[in-house]
């Protein structure tokens, strides 16, 4: 057991515990905090995979920006749940079972296929396919990934930037009060904060 392996298992444990806590927590704030922990763990694993740039992005965008957004909304809307899992009526139970079954089936199938794939890759004639050695020096650095993004993926990059712009505008439009204007409607803010305290 070298240090890398220990690191991997430690962060894997963190990720799984965090994920499970995220989906089981009765309290939304707790769920968000667990999710932040999961994302940090994932960032660490990205770093293990030589994806340094993405590890940084994971911390900045996910654990930073997106989770702040979540917390903000949770603060506004949060209420503790008495029955966090939906089990109302036989049809809900049925959907519950179908959903859980499907998810597990998908997970197992995907896993088995991927593993199968890697195994077959490893046994390909003509030499090793999967590398166990360290990748080149600049693998996963900002310069290398940035170079890719601004050459081969320039179009996708620009498309995503436009998508983000649209998302920003859409978020403003959707979340805005549907009455004449948010600024002239103080009672809307009042009821919101009231809902938040309840």
């Amino acid at each position, binding site marked *: 057991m070298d240090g890398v392996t220990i690191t991997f298992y430690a962060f894997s444990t963190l990720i799984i515990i965090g994920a499970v806590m*995220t989906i089981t927590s009765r309290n939304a704030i707790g769920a968000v905090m667990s999710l932040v922990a999961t994302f940090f763990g994932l960032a660490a694993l990205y770093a293990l995979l030589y994806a340094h740039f993405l590890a940084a992005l994971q911390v900045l965008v*996910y654990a930073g920006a997106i989770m702040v957004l*979540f917390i903000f909304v949770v603060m*506004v809307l949060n209420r503790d*749940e008495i029955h966090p899992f939906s089990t109302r009526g036989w049809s809900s139970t049925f959907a*519950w079972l179908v959903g859980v079954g499907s998810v597990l089936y998908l997970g197992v199938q995907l896993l088995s296929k991927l593993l199968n794939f890697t195994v077959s890759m490893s046994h390909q004639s003509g030499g090793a396919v999967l590398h166990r050695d360290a990748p080149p020096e600049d693998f996963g650095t900002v310069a290398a990934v940035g170079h890719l993004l601004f050459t081969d993926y320039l179009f996708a990059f620009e498309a995503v930037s436009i998508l983000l712009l649209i*998302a920003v505008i859409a978020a403003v439009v959707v*979340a805005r009060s549907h009455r004449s204007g948010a600024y002239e409607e103080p009672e809307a803010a009042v009821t919101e904060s009231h809902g938040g305290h309840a």
Partner: protein
Amino acid sequence: MIPVENFLVLAAVLFCIGGLGVVLRKNVLIILMSVELMLNAANLTLLAFARAHHDQHAHAFAFLVIAVAAAEAAVGLSIVVGIFRTRRTVQVDELTLMKH
């Protein structure tokens, strides 16, 4: 050196946990978070293979996935706020306006 299979197993488990969250929880916020979990599981798979093949193209994909996830979170959360404003709830089983 960690074998790539370890990462794949971890990603699959993460994906399942996210999927269960989507299916089981009633709170829209938790459901959105579970979706984020699933997206991250996909990202983890991408990066694991990138490392195994020494091919950085997957990094660009992962980058795009993160950007799209950010957009999704922004729009999704604003919808949640909008729904809460009119319906006073974020429980999906109470949001059954599309009922027959």
